[in-house]
């Protein structure tokens, strides 16, 4: 990879980040505005000995990457809103069967077919609650091309380490934006692999965690001959209806995430110490917020930035501290209030929570956010 800076598109950075992380199996179905990820990987994966397949639909794409992950491959698919909805059942399967995989959702305006080429951030809650049942999830939201690369690598690291599907919540702004970046060289960002069993077949339990993270995962074809199912299962992987075992396994699914929040959650802050108002934003919207906050500071308004890179699990401890200090919070996002719900929940009446919401197929202009800052300051 070139050490020279070059003009890179967000979707391209995502594709290259995946290859950097060791992703060698991609299955997908074309959908705007995620299509470039598939197109780039169709070309790039065979060059690095990887596999690319265009499946018949998004359901099949999600199924195929789960099957491939079970053979030991690092796997990925990419989609947008309508395709993301179709993937949900099998994303739930990946949660239940603890299959590492990455799903990039380059969000577009919805509901339904919406506006295929327009930016939006309307899938924040779908990423959290789109599947049926009750399980934790990890979702990351980059807001620059460089970060699209870095967070894609991180998504794979988290997926492999915790044996979970990790959702990359891009949006059309980040996916289609081009920026001058120098992509990292091998070794610059750590690349982590899944934990493999070292025991013999008789002592292998695919759903018994020796640490507080995820159980070791054998690859199909290695002689462990184990069973994988979306049914509730015991440590051996076979179906059970015993309430105490169901409870234990589901509790473990939650704990393997919830006990590592400090390790999983990342966020970026700017000028929050002296700020009396903090603007919370992510993804494409954070670009406009950055400009608005700069202008507000020039006017003498003490405004700071809180930008979660990890949307789920939500950085509630860090935000809770800001709420406890009585700072005003302003949430800017391209929807009618999805992350806002979480901020309100975390603030719990301890501070004022305002919002600057827009969902019309356009990126919110910095002036609109600046006006809102002036209004609620």
């Amino acid at each position, binding site marked *: 990879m070139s050490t020279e800076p070059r003009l890179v598109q967000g979707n391209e950075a995502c594709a290259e980040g995946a290859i950097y992380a060791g992703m060698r199996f991609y299955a997908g179905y074309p959908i705007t505005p995620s299509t470039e990820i598939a197109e780039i990987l169709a070309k790039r994966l065979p060059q690095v000995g990887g596999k690319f397949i265009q499946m018949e639909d998004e359901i099949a794409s999600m*199924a195929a990457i789960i099957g491939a992950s079970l053979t030991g*491959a690092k796997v990925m698919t990419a989609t947008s809103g309508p395709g993301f909805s179709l993937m949900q059942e099998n994303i739930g399967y990946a949660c239940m069967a603890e299959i590492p995989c990455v799903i990039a959702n380059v969000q577009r305006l919805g509901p339904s077919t919406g506006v295929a080429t327009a930016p939006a951030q309307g899938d924040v809650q779908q990423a959290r609650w789109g599947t049926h049942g009750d399980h934790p999830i990890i979702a990351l939201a980059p807001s620059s091309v460089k970060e699209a690369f870095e967070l894609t690598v991180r998504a794979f690291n988290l997926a492999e380490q915790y044996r979970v599907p990790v959702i990359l919540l891009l949006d059309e702004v980040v996916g289609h934006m081009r920026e001058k970046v120098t992509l990292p060289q091998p070794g610059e960002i750590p690349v982590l692999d899944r934990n493999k069993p070292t025991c013999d077949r008789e002592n292998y339990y695919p759903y018994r965690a020796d640490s507080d993270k995820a159980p070791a995962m054998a690859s*199909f074809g290695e002689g462990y001959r184990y069973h*994988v199912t979306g049914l509730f299962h015991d440590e051996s992987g076979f179906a059970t209806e015993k309430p105490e075992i169901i409870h234990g396994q589901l509790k473990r699914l939650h704990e393997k995430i919830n006990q590592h929040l400090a390790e999983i959650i990342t966020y970026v802050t700017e000028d929050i110490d002296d700020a009396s108002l903090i603007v919370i934003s992510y993804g494409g919207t954070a670009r406009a917020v950055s400009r608005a906050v700069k202008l507000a500071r020039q006017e003498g308004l003490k405004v700071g930035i809180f930008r979660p890179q990890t949307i789920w699990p939500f950085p509630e401890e860090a935000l809770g501290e800001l709420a406890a200090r009585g700072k005003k919070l302003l949430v800017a996002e391209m929807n009618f209030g999805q992350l806002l719900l979480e901020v309100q929940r975390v603030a719990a009446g301890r501070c004022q929570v305002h919002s600057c919401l827009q969902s019309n197929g356009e990126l919110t202009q910095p002036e609109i956010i600046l006006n809102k800052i002036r209004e609620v300051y």
Partner: protein
Amino acid sequence: MLPEIEQYFRLEKLPHMWCPGCGNGIILHCLVKAIDKLCLDQNRTTMVSGIGCAARASGYLDFDTLHTTHGRALAFATGVKFAKPELNVFVLTGDGDCTAIGGNHFIHAARRNINLTTIVFNNSIYGMTGGQYSPMTPSTSRATTSPYGNLERPFNLAQLAIAAGATFVARTTTYHTKQLTDLIIEGYKNNGFSLIEVVTHCPTSFGRQNKMGSPADMLKWQRDHGVSAIRYEKLSPEERADKFITGILHKAEAPEYTAEYQKLLEKLRGR
């Protein structure tokens, strides 16, 4: 159980949960006999199934086994086989699983000619949910969701597979066990997408609603209605009406998907 096939079962998971008289166990028996005759490496063989009665088969078999979501067995199996083509991959699916919710995956797996050996347990009904009609329930048959007789026409799955590009298509019944074993062997040997449709009996959900008698009566029905192509040719149009052809229905040569991809990789590597 015959001692030579015991090694292929997870004996601690038996007895199975299928109803008394169900034909699924016969298919499983023929499958492992075929695997034994083929001398397949148990560690390099994967069973993928969807949801439903038939799909529970994977849990009883001592291989890497993948019990997936409803209708998606072929899509999961495509991922397994494409990622690791050296694995032998069998897909065990029911008529509802494969032809309704999984219909799209079925035609595309056949079109791609990916090397999967697919065994469709066709009992003409949704068994696990209690006897609703499937896309392979014969017209006028009764089901809980067709109490006045099925108004829909069933798929001819073999014809569908051939039209979609499958390179090996066969059909038999749970009565014809030797043929079933042989067809699984032939299907496995085919380098591409293989379909073996097995007409099986569901005395509990299909037989009872359609007054088919005992499980033995249903097996006799299979004996009398499943005929070879040669015999079928000799029948009058009236006699053909309720018969179906058994045996190999289609064989063709076509590029296999994972092999084609391997060629691409080698070509790029050679540059």
